[in-house]
């Protein structure tokens, strides 16, 4: 945000903050390491607000759970903003010094009265008001979010609505404050850092805007960098459907099971002229491939770095040899380059990293392998070898006069999910994660665990009673796009009208056959969090065979 592609704060800061808005995140299950830092913060006296349609395991730790309607996040944020402004709690000095666009923002949120907020979100007005005022009054406060914010058709607007709250109250650029998207994997951040996103060069240098960077990096690489953004994943899939994109090289990703509206995705993959999948295990996507390149698992069978949610770049070291036939990923890529006529030699991970430092000197210039080793990781940016790394970002916004560009307020408006429940599909399905499984189960489905209970349809006691469903009954879940079957699990944390599933068991219960293929034009993220379904009982629980413990997946 404000030009930096990462969360603003260190883990340590959540331990020392006063108020945390945990928005659209069941971090207790999905980000357990980060949640441990939050628990320390709670122990130190932080007040926790969990904003989530479900009363999740995270919400069970909250001082206040605000159970908004799915997809009403902007309405809630804007209503809070209006309350803060009307209570005179906007940080006017900070706004004047560090931001731009406040007047139009104030005008835009003016229509988000408490009455409207309650109507749009379902959260009672007094609760919205109390949360707004406590957030604004806190000395230190943070907004943290995950996919509950970003897996919507208006993902970027949702994020901007939250950033607006931090700007409004001056809760950014200071210790213990900030805006933090929690990363779901150890190196989601690192992928972005290295430029594996369609609109950025390494170190978040913009492809379209930053001619100087294109020129400079192109010179280093000996190529001319074209000035247009590439496709994001959603755009790729659409381009594949249109037969504009006919060849695909997939590294460590399983779109055949992880993306929305799977029928569509699988058709697109099947229609490719050439699909190369580089993977550590055989996945559903790899089954569509023309060539499968067995790769070493970089987290233990190779060298490199990863970047975590607090922007800390950490060394990864090889501790075991890969199994026979699996190759180091750098070797694979260099070899492909060589056969395509570009001799990159056989670079080591450190050599690649040093090239990255040269390409993005302001970002990573000071992060030599030796320093990463000595300091136990460094938080970017770290421009030179005397720089300790940044614990939090955007401190410059507090300098008077301000350095650099002002941070912009963004005018964003309530825009509910594309598909809403109706008489035909009366329930709203939202998706997420559970503790014991990881994404499509490629890495977690292969071993037995007493926690692996398989997939279920989580449903409120009220809906279950209405539909005559008992705990454990096999039910069929149908949307306009597909249908799946799963046992029902009655969940007190759900209210009537909302059901919940995960994507963890795509072989048994391909949930994404149900989800809707609409995505945010700005980020490409699909609206996994909301689609309309209906549920019918298939077999009573007494006749259902107990679910398999774990799934029989070949992990070699």
């Amino acid at each position: 945000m404000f030009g930096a592609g990462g969360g603003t704060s260190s883990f340590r800061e959540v331990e020392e903050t006063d108020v945390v808005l945990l928005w659209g995140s069941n971090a207790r299950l999905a980000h357990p390491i980060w949640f441990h830092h939050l628990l320390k913060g709670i122990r130190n006296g932080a007040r926790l607000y969990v904003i989530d349609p479900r009363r999740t395991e995270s919400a069970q730790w909250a001082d206040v759970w605000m159970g908004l309607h799915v997809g009403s996040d902007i309405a809630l944020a804007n209503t809070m903003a209006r309350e803060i402004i009307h209570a005179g709690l906007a940080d006017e000095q900070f706004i004047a010094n560090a931001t731009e666009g406040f007047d139009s923002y104030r005008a835009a949120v003016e229509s988000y009265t408490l009455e409207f907020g309650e109507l749009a979100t379902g959260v009672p007005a007094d609760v919205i008001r109390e949360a707004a005022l406590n957030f604004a009054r806190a000395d230190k406060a943070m907004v943290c979010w995950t996919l509950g914010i970003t897996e919507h058709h208006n993902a970027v607007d949702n994020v901007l609505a939250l950033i607006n709250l931090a700007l409004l109250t001056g809760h950014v650029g200071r210790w213990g404050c900030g805006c933090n998207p929690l990363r779901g994997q150890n190196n989601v951040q690192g992928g972005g850092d290295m430029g594996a996103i369609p609109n950025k060069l390494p170190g978040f240098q913009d492809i379209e805007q930053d001619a100087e960077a294109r020129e400079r990096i192109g010179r280093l690489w000996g190529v001319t960098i074209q000035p247009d953004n590439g496709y994001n994943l959603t755009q790729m899939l659409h381009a594949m459907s249109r037969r504009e994109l006919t060849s695909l090289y997939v590294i460590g990703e399983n779109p055949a099971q992880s993306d929305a509206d799977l029928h569509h995705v699988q058709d697109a993959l099947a229609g490719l002229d050439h699909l190369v999948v580089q993977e550590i295990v055989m996945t559903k996507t790899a089954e569509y491939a023309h060539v499968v390149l067995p790769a070493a698992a970089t987290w233990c069978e190779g060298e490199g770095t990863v970047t975590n949610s607090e922007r800390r770049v950490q060394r990864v070291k090889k501790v075991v040899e890969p199994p026979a036939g699996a190759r180091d990923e750098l070797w694979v890529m260099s070899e492909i380059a060589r056969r395509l006529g570009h001799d990159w030699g056989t670079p080591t991970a450190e050599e690649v990293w040093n090239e990255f430092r040269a390409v993005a000197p302001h970002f990573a210039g000071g992060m030599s392998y030796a320093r990463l080793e000595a300091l136990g990781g460094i938080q970017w940016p770290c421009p030179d070898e005397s720089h300790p790394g940044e614990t939090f970002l955007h401190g410059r916004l507090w300098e008077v006069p301000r350095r650099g560009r002002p941070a912009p307020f963004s005018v964003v408006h309530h825009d509910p999910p594309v598909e809403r429940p109706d008489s035909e599909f009366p329930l709203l399905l939202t998706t997420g994660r559970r503790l014991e499984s990881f994404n499509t189960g490629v890495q977690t489905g292969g071993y037995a665990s007493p926690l692996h209970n398989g997939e279920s349809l989580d449903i409120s006691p009220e809906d279950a009673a209405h539909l005559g469903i008992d705990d454990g009954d096999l039910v069929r879940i149908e949307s306009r796009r597909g249908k799946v079957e799963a046992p029902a699990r009655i969940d007190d944390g759900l209210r009537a009208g909302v059901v919940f599933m995960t994507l963890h068991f795509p072989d048994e219960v391909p949930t994404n056959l149900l989800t809707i293929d609409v995505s945010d034009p700005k980020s490409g993220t699909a609206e996994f969090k909301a689609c309309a379904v209906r549920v019918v009982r298939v077999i009573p629980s007494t006749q259902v065979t107990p679910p398999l413990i774990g799934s029989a997946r070949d992990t070699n």
Partner: protein
Amino acid sequence: MDIRRVESDPTDDERAAVDALLGPPSSAWDGGPRGSQRDAHVSHVGGRDTRALRDRLLPALQALQARVGWISEGGLGYVCDRLNVPPAEGWGVATFYALLATSPRPRRVVHVCDDIACKCAGADAVIAALESAAGPALHHAPHGSHVTVAGRGAWMRSPCLGMCDQAPAALVTDAGEHPRERLLGQVTADRLTDLLSGADPDRPAARPSVHQPSAQVQLLRRIGKVDPTSLDEYRATGGYRALERAIDMGPEAVIAEVTASKLVGRGGAAFPTGRKWEAVRAQPVRPHYLVCNADESEPGTFKDRVLMEGDPFALVEAMTIAGFATGCEQGYLYIRGEYPLAFEHMQHAIEQARRRRLLGGNILERGVFFDFEIRRGAGAYICGEETALFESIEGKRGEPRNKPPFPVNAGLFGKPTVVNNVETLANIPGIVLEGGAAFGAVGTPQSTGTRLFCVCGNVQRPGVYEAAFGTTVRTVLEMAGGLLSGRRLAAVLLGGAAGTFVRPDELDLKLTHEDTRAAATTLGSGVVMVIDDTIDLQDLVLRIAAFFRDESCGQCVPCRVGTVRQEEALHRIARSRTRGGLAMEVALLEDVGVAMRDASICGLGQTAYAAVESAIKRLRLYDPGDQVS
């Protein structure tokens, strides 16, 4: 808190018992019915306000126990819903305390003491007769097991009930809408059998067994003379003069006098009270807590019960002075669960004091704020250990903490805490009024003031006797009237189960901290248990070993395993089925005992071998010549 709920529902009785303590549920998220529109979108359960309720867990479980006689799965689940405690943790607490049952029990349970003092008074014969008249004792059924409950009442064996002056003793508990508990002395098998068939346990009068002329006593001077339920009588006999004086003096001066008095703790550890108070007073962290340890469970000890039953206002006043001096505005009085009358009298005294503005806000209209509440134990000796007591108040299993940090730095709820024994505090008003120097003039230079001795066992007049430090064992024995006629002294147990035996030829030992230390024994909690030649000493030692095995919290290995090994070896000796001969068994006892003493976390394990060791080394009870192995 990642809670998986218990699925069983509570009965109406169980719900009512818990709601009477906690008030009705606030929402569907803390045990109320589902269905409100607000609950579908808001919860205030689970955050700091809910976590702050954790210390209500033990009182809530006690409320269930008192109402229905045991803690069912549905009842436990409801308590856990109300307090947002994981059922596994609630279960952990419920199964920790002996007075809480997790399998069905009849409404009336009679707990019959078979501990050392009652043994000396013939408890074994009473129990044998009871067994033949009323059938076997109810054992602690495996937790959660479904036992059939027949008859109107059941009886159980109990460790020391703190009624050693009126041994043999029993505790009657009646569960129900109007629960009732009675601590009975001088019980017979007939009386117990009647009780099991529903006889009314008539309310015993407070029977302070104090047999001393009041001229000689300080701490006991009101006991048996002044109505313990009358604040007016208390004030008419000098009550609350000390608090007024303390407020005049100011906290620093009060602590200076306490330090000058050289008062040390009377619970057993003998730590200087003034130093403890000063350390807490100086802590910048707030709040400070005052805890009065009235979990008097050391076998043979009953002095704190006598003080609380007989002079409750004195303890209220003393705690108020202590709170004022150390900067505490909130206190806790933790009374062992087996003391119903002490609880009633203290509860009454607190209510009276609050009504007269002697507790709460603006005490004596002098701007002093202090109040305290009573927490009742539930049958766990270990909770007399100060950090285990904190855990118990906090709603957890009573497992001692590692030290440091010490309570003065991080005690109850992690805050600086003064923890004092009842008798220790009882000395405070006198010190404030007469001055530390005057207090220090009594006793010896190193052991100042008077001490309460719990004289029990085979003496003419068991009871609490107050004597200046330096009085000999012989004198104390004579104060209690000496032995029964025709008996010969076999041993004296000083300090209770955690203390040591001394021989009949050691009666001139002066009862001071320094003399007992030099003689490798202890004053402990002031127990002077007299054992004559009619008593099977090895049987007594075995009972002590069984006591420690039963009361070990099981947290640390040396104690958990050591107390079992110790009892097993003593059993083998008692049955003449030693392994490798008597000398080998004694050597094993020594090895296990040293391991427990050196490596246990708390005083329980550290002293679990003390009495056994003194029986071996001092009484030479296990010398090869005396027994064929």
